[in-house]
């Protein structure tokens, strides 16, 4: 666009200079040169005509010359024949040599201007090109960054996938030794009970008392072995669930019913376990919610996991906080366009920004000691992803944590 408009500019300027030459050269011809008798025909007429209209005849001549479009030095060259010596002395600037020099200077000037303009144009084009290149470079950089993050995500996924396979393998291999640990400890506990029975047949003495006390310790230790073996078994089972997946069938499900059932189950499970807490549970269910295409078996685990996490978090807050804190869990469902929302919100201690990023990573847990396997949310995330949904975490430290699951509204699609 710009190069199209600038090229004629040069041409215009060149034309302008040519015009100037045409107009200027006649004026350089001396007045009396034209007034004198001249071999060129028409000149005497010009001089008489010029005197009649009382202007210098050179002007008239110049008008004619310009009209003819011929270079005036042709005329002057004719003049030099008359009185060459004096003429060249007085009017050296109007000799043909002088005009040649003028021409050369003019051509040179034009050349310079042309050069200058070319250079400017080039500079402009360069600038534009550079800007374009910069823009492209920025775009390329952006694309590169996008690619990099995608690559990182892919690597992460790949790592998780291979980790999944690895854990499945490890889980099975661990199951075998665990089988022995659990069964032998259970067996030994049975033996100790039998020893107790046999000991009642013995005469009671201090020694039997000592033995009984020692056996009590052994029994306690065996119970611990069994307890932790069972715990390990639980972890292995979760790991297998993690890597297995794809079990169960997707079917149109009443999400509200599923939520009611499993929130209730989670609550009673928590009440039946250690350190139960009182929780105000509020179900805000969209009664017009259409049936959702999901795997009820897997999805029930999502609800259970999210509720369990909320209860655990709020329990921590009840321990830390004594000023009339009432744990509250809000579970809501909502239909919005082609999306279905499920939200689980607690008013627990919240999650720090630092931890929020790691929350979905396998084996990441904030739960103390032996309470958490660090797999719950990771599995939850996997299940939501398998449903082509998204899991979003909003939290404010000290105030609330909200898990929002977005699912596709399949009913709306049909």
């Amino acid at each position, binding site marked *: 666009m710009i190069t199209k408009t600038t090229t004629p500019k040069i041409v215009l300027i060149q034309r302008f200079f040519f015009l100037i030459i045409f107009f200027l050269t006649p004026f350089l011809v001396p007045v009396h040169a034209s007034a004198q008798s001249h071999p060129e025909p028409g000149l005497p007429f010009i001089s008489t005509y010029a005197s009649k209209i009382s202007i210098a005849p050179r002007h008239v001549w110049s008008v004619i010359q310009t009209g003819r479009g011929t270079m005036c030095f042709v005329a002057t060259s004719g003049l030099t024949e008359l009185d060459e010596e004096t003429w060249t002395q007085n009017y050296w600037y109007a000799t043909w040599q002088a005009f040649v020099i003028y021409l050369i200077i003019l051509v040179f000037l034009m050349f310079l201007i042309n050069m200058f303009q070319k250079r400017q144009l080039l500079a402009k084009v360069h600038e534009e090109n550079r800007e374009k290149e910069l823009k492209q470079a920025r775009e390329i950089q952006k694309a590169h960054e996008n690619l990099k993050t995608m690559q990182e995500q892919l690597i992460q996924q790949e790592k998780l996938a291979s980790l999944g396979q690895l854990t499945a393998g490890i889980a099975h291999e661990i199951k*075998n030794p*665990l*089988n*022995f640990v*659990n*069964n*032998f400890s259970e*067996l030994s506990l049975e033996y100790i009970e039998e020893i107790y029975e046999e000991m009642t047949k013995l005469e009671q003495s201090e020694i039997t008392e000592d033995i009984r006390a020692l056996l009590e310790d052994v029994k306690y230790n065996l119970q611990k072995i069994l307890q932790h073996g069972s715990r390990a078994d639980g972890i292995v089972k979760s790991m297998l669930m993690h890597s297995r997946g794809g079990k169960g069938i997707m079917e149109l499900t009443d999400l509200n019913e599923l939520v009611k059932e499993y929130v209730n189950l989670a609550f009673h499970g928590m009440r039946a376990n250690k350190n139960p807490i009182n929780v105000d549970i509020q179900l805000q269910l969209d009664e017009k919610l259409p049936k959702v295409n999901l795997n009820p078996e897997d999805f029930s685990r999502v609800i259970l996991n999210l509720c369990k996490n909320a209860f655990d978090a709020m329990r921590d807050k009840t321990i830390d906080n004594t000023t009339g804190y009432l744990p509250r869990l809000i579970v809501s469902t909502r239909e919005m366009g082609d999306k279905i929302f499920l939200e689980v919100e607690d008013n627990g201690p919240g999650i720090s920004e630092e931890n929020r990023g790691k929350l979905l990573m396998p084996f990441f847990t904030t739960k103390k000691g032996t309470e958490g396997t660090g797999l719950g949310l990771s599995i939850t995330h996997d299940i939501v992803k398998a449903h082509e949904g998204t899991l979003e975490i909003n939290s404010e430290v000290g105030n609330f944590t909200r898990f929002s699951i977005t699912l596709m509204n399949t009913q709306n699609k049909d």
Partner: protein
Amino acid sequence: MKFLVVDDEKDVELLFQQKLRKEIRNGSIELKFAFSGNEALEIMEKSESEEVMYIFSDINMPGMTGLELLDKLKAKFPQIPVSMISAYGDAENYEKAIELGAKEFFVKPINFENLKVELNKIIEDKEPKKE
């Protein structure tokens, strides 16, 4: 009544013998052990084969896997029920085992309560015939 347990882990023998000590003591069952598929086949092909009434086999074993063993046992001794015991409790293994004719499928860690229920069922089924 004789049972054959096939597992590549030797501790399984100890575990079964202790877990089922009461049943062994009162003579209602007798346990035999094989530590590989080949060994199990050898035992079965000897004269003892008539006495073995029930086989428990692990799946994941070096050499012959439990599923291969199951296939061979079913071809040679179709009358003897075989149950699988495996750490791999996934659908694929389960379906394959049942397809090949396994009677039951137990998942490790072995729940001996369930195992005893199965044993008693077998004993009750067989004993009237013996008498």
